C-alpha cells in the first residue's frame, strides 16, 4: 500500500456483496456519457436509474457554475474520509492527481493538517461539508452563515450543499455494496499512470468542458419532491435532482411503499422534518394509513410491514451513520433476504435519500 493511502488503509472492508453483470445498453450509456466504463458500474446494472446517478458521481458531468474543480474534489476527499469510504477516497485521490495537485499536498490534506492553511473560503466550505456529511447534529439553515461570511453567494452555497450531498450518496453506493478497492487504490502506484499523468490530465480537462456544454432539461415542477427541487430553482442542478428522485421513485425493483418507509426512516434518523414531510406524502400516496406510518417511524416495526420490509426498514436506519464493515455484514443478510436486484435499488434509494435529507435540512424551510 502506498504511503498516501495509509489514512484509510486500516478501514475494515468486506468482500463485495454484489455480482457484476454486463448489460450492453448500460455499458453503451455510460461510455457515451463518460467516454469510458468504470468497472464498478457493472455491479449496479440491475438498476438503470442508479447507473445514471453514478454517472453524475463523475463531476465533469455536473454543471457547476460557481465552484472550481479543486474545491469540488477537496470536498469529495473530506467527505469520503469522514464516511470511511475507501473506494471514493481512492477515486478522489486519483482525480486530484490528474488535476495537478502535488502528491505532497494530497498527503498533507489526508493528514488534515493543511485545512487551517487553506484560504478562508475553502476552509469554510470544507468545514461545512464535514458537518453536513456527519449530520451529528444535523445542520440547519443557520449553518450556511459561515459560507456567506466567507464570500460565497447563494448559488455557490447551493452548489456546495449539492456536491457534499452527492458525495454522501456516492460513498454509500460504493460502501454499502463493498465495491472492491484494490484496483483503484493501486492506480496511483502504476508506472503507466505516473508516465501518462500529464496526458490524462489534459483528457480529463477536455472531457469536463465537453460534458459541461451539454444542455439540461428544464426542471420538473410539482410532485412530492417539489420542496427540495425548488430549493435549487434557477440552477441546472434542480433538473438533475428532480430526475434522479423521480426515476428512483418510479422504478419497481422495490415496492414504492417500501421506498417510502426507507425515506421516512432516514429522515427520522437524521431528525430532518422537511424530509419526513416528503416521505409522509409519498406513503400517503401509496395508501399507507398515517397511524401505520407513525408506528413504523417510532418503533421500526409494525404488523403492517411485509416480511421484506421487516428486514429493509431497520437496515435503512443503519445507512445514516455506520462503520463500513459492520453495515456490509448487515447488508449481506438483507441481500440474502430480498435478492440482488432489490438490494441494489435499496442501496441506491437509501444513498439518494440520505443525500436529499441533508440538502433539505439546510435549504428547505422548517
Amino acid at each position: 500500500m502506498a504511503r498516501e493511502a495509509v489514512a484509510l488503509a486500516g478501514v475494515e472492508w468486506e468482500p463485495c456483496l454484489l455480482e457484476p453483470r454486463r448489460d450492453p445498453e448500460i455499458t453503451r450509456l455510460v461510455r457515451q456519457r463518460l467516454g469510458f466504463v468504470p468497472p464498478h458500474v457493472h455491479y449496479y446494472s440491475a438498476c438503470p436509474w442508479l447507473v445514471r446517478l453514478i454517472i453524475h458521481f463523475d463531476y465533469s458531468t455536473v454543471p457547476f457554475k460557481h465552484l472550481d474543480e479543486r474545491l469540488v474534489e477537496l470536498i469529495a476527499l473530506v467527505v469520503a474520509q469522514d464516511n470511511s469510504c475507501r473506494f471514493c477516497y481512492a477515486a478522489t485521490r486519483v482525480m486530484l492527481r490528474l488535476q495537478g495537485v502535488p502528491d505532497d499536498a494530497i498527503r498533507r490534506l489526508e493528514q488534515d493538517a493543511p485545512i487551517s492553511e487553506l484560504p478562508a473560503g475553502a476552509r469554510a466550505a470544507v468545514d461545512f461539508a464535514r458537518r453536513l456529511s456527519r449530520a451529528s447534529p444535523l445542520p440547519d439553515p443557520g449553518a450556511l452563515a459561515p459560507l456567506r461570511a466567507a464570500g460565497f453567494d447563494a448559488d455557490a452555497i447551493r452548489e456546495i450543499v449539492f456536491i457534499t450531498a452527492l458525495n454522501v450518496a456516492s460513498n454509500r453506493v460504493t460502501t454499502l455494496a463493498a465495491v472492491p478497492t484494490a484496483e483503484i487504490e493501486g492506480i496511483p502506484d502504476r508506472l503507466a499512470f505516473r508516465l501518462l499523468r500529464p496526458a490524462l490530465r489534459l483528457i480529463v480537462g477536455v472531457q469536463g468542458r465537453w460534458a459541461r456544454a451539454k444542455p439540461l432539461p428544464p426542471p420538473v415542477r410539482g410532485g412530492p419532491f417539489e420542496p427540495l427541487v425548488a430549493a435549487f430553482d434557477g440552477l441546472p442542478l434542480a433538473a438533475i435532482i428532480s430526475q434522479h428522485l423521480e426515476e428512483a421513485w418510479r422504478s419497481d425493483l422495490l415496492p414504492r411503499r417500501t421506498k417510502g418507509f426507507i425515506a421516512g426512516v432516514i429522515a427520522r434518523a437524521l431528525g430532518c422534518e422537511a424530509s419526513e414531510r416528503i416521505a409522509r406524502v409519498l406513503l400517503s400516496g401509496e395508501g399507507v394509513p398515517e397511524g401505520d406510518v407513525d408506528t413504523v417511524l417510532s418503533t421500526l416495526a409494525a404488523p403492517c410491514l411485509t416480511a421484506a420490509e421487516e428486514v429493509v426498514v431497520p437496515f435503512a436506519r443503519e445507512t445514516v451513520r455506520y462503520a463500513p464493515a459492520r453495515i456490509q455484514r448487515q447488508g449481506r443478510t438483507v441481500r440474502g433476504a430480498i435478492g440482488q436486484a432489490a438490494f441494489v435499488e435499496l442501496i441506491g434509494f437509501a444513498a439518494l435519500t440520505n443525500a436529499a435529507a441533508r440538502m433539505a435540512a439546510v435549504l428547505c424551510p422548517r
Partner: protein
Amino acid sequence: MNALAWWAVAATVGGAAASGAWLAARRRSRDLARRLAAAARDLEHLQAAFARFAPPEVVDGIATGNDGLPVGRREVTVLFADLMGFSAMSERLAPEVLVRVLSTHFQRMSQIVAYHRGHVAKFIGDGMMALFGAFEHNPWQGNDAAHAALEMLAALDEHSAALTAAGMPRLRMGIGIHRGVAVAGVVGSAELQEFTVIGATVNLAARIERLTRVHEVRALLTTEARAGLDPRFVLRELPSTPIRGMSAPVVTFSLEGFAQEAPPGRGGK
C-alpha cells in the same frame, strides 16, 4: 596552473561539502516529514479513540482547543447495570482473580453497549452507567437500550456458567432503564474531565436498577423507557412502587425477552 589546480580542488571540495549539506538537509527534511506524518496519524487515531467517549462536536472542540465545549439538554436513555452479591464474592476471591472476573465482565458489557449504539459513561465499582442517544440524535434509543439489556443478561449467563464450572460463585446482575431529558456536557476538574449527563433522569435510572432486587427481576423499564419500544419486546407490568425523590409511586415493566416471530396481522398491502 597551480592557482587553477587550487581553484579546482577548492571548487570540488566546496561542491562536495555543499552537496553533503544539501543531502543532509534533505534527509532531515524527509525525517521531519515522516515524523510529522506519524504524529498526525497518532493524533488521528487518538481523535478516533476519543470519539468513543464523547460526541463528535465535543471531540472536535477539544482537538481544536475550543474552551467553550457544547453543553445542553438532550433526550437520553440511561441504563444502569449492577452486579449483585459481588461485594461478598470479593471477600472470598484472590484480588487478581477478582480483577480478572470484573474486567472480563466489563469488557463484554462494553462491547454489547457499543454494538447497540450506546456508550459506557462510567464504571462505578462493580456497576456501570451506559447512555443511548447522548452522542447523536437517536429516535430509537429505547429499542437500542432494551436490546442491549437483553444481550448483556445473556452474556452474563454465559460468563457466569464458565465461572461456576471453574468453582467460582454465580454472577447476577440487575438492570434499570429510564428515558428522559438530561443535561449533557464535559464535567470535571482541569486535570480530569469526562463527557457525561446529569440530572433527575440519571438518578431515577439508578433507583430503578435497585428496584430489580425488590421485584426480583433482572431488568426493569420505566413507562418513559417503554414508550416507542418495538412491540415485539416482551414486557410484564409490575405494581407501582414508591421511590425516593419521586412524588408518586413509579410503574415499572420487567423486560423478559424479544419475540423474533412477526406479530400477528402482518402483511402490508
